[in-house]
């Protein structure tokens, strides 16, 4: 995959937020967003039957997608740091989707897996990205914890947990020790994959 080039990208968004309409977070959360959401729930008459976690109605699927596009193009994107709103058009939303890759390779060599689109509930199940998913893990067993996932044959990728510390120290965000903690985390997960005989799994 080459370097990406997009009409609306993170740099254009940065500029738009600088010049966007000023809105307080409270106004966005309590007025603008809820009112707009209800407007499009009503427009498409969306009703979800909680006994059916997966929709069986084809029109409902289309309506949920279109309601999301309408909502986003109507109210735009809110930036809580600048407290401004960026406008975005339907064309830009669709262009962003069109630029997304239709497949990915995660991991390397024999341990690589292809992420391919599934067509509805096709017979090929989803990939399993195994791991503690951000849950805290004691530093002393961090490698072993992740090895229990890497050694499972049905696990395709690893999602790691968070080490409780590094060399017994806390690793608060924004401190020098955070860097040590992050490197410990990355090296330990790779070590876990290596011990499981799958050194190049996607992490």
């Amino acid at each position: 995959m080459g370097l990406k080039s997009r009409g609306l990208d993170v740099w254009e968004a940065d500029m738009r937020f600088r010049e966007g309409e000023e809105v307080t977070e409270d106004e966005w959360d309590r007025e603008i967003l809820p009112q707009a959401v209800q407007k499009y729930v009503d427009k498409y008459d969306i009703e979800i039957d909680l006994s059916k976690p997966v929709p069986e109605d084809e029109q409902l699927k289309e309506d949920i997608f279109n309601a999301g596009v309408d909502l986003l193009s109507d109210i735009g994107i809110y930036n809580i740091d600048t407290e401004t709103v960026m406008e975005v058009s339907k064309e830009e939303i669709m262009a962003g989707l069109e630029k997304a890759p239709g497949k990915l390779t995660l991991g390397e060599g024999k341990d690589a897996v292809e992420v391919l689109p599934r067509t509805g509930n096709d017979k090929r199940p989803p990939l399993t990205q195994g791991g503690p998913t951000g849950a805290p893990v004691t530093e002393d067993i961090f490698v072993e914890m992740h090895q229990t996932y890497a050694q499972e044959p049905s696990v395709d990728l690893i999602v790691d947990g968070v080490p409780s510390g590094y060399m017994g120290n806390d690793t608060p965000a924004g401190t020098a020790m955070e860097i040590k903690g992050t490197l410990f985390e990355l090296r330990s997960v790779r070590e876990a994959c290596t011990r499981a005989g799958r050194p190049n799994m996607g992490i």
Partner: protein
Amino acid sequence: MVAGWVENNDTIMIEEMPIFGGYGGGIEGSTVIDMATHLISYTMYHCDWHLEGPIHVRWGITTARECLAMAGHVAAAFNKAQPDILLGNQYYPLSGPCTNMCLKEVAAQAMTDTVSGREIMSGSASAKGVLKDYTTGMESRMMSEAAEAVAGLDVSEANEIIDKLVNSYEDDYREADQTKDPDNTELGNGKTLQECYDMSDLTPTDEYWEVYEEAKEEMEELGVSFEG
């Protein structure tokens, strides 16, 4: 961060965990917000694949009925409107390792993710992902087995199974959430990795295998067909 990733030509996964019961109100509003948030990832953040995880405002889990419905509807909507978009979902069950309830929770979510056409299942942060060492590879094994069991199944048939499966644990949230007994192998926090595995060779304990097999047998009685 995103600007640096793009300049470095990295593969970019964007994560969001929409709240059921937040500013979007009920299930319909929360689902539409979830959809719009996915779209932001592709519009502004150069997203290659999107990872969500609808969280219940009261319980802090992804395995509640409403959270499964949010994820299931958004994935199915993408599958119809934009079938090439690559989607993942992350797992935060209420119960911890070595409990029947935890295994049923992750199985229900894996079935929902599979049937709705999702590409990646990511987890599991068992015991809500807040207790230290309360996660193990066995929960991921269950995710894979449950996904394989329903892959290709008729959607209506799968919905009936998931509905019954969620029914079997959703009345226990309060008791399980308040359970602080680590020896409880039915509900609650469950056990740590050190209690679930022989740490000398990293094999699951006989106790966890027993809980695992019993959970599978219970799900088979609900209509799940596991291989082997």
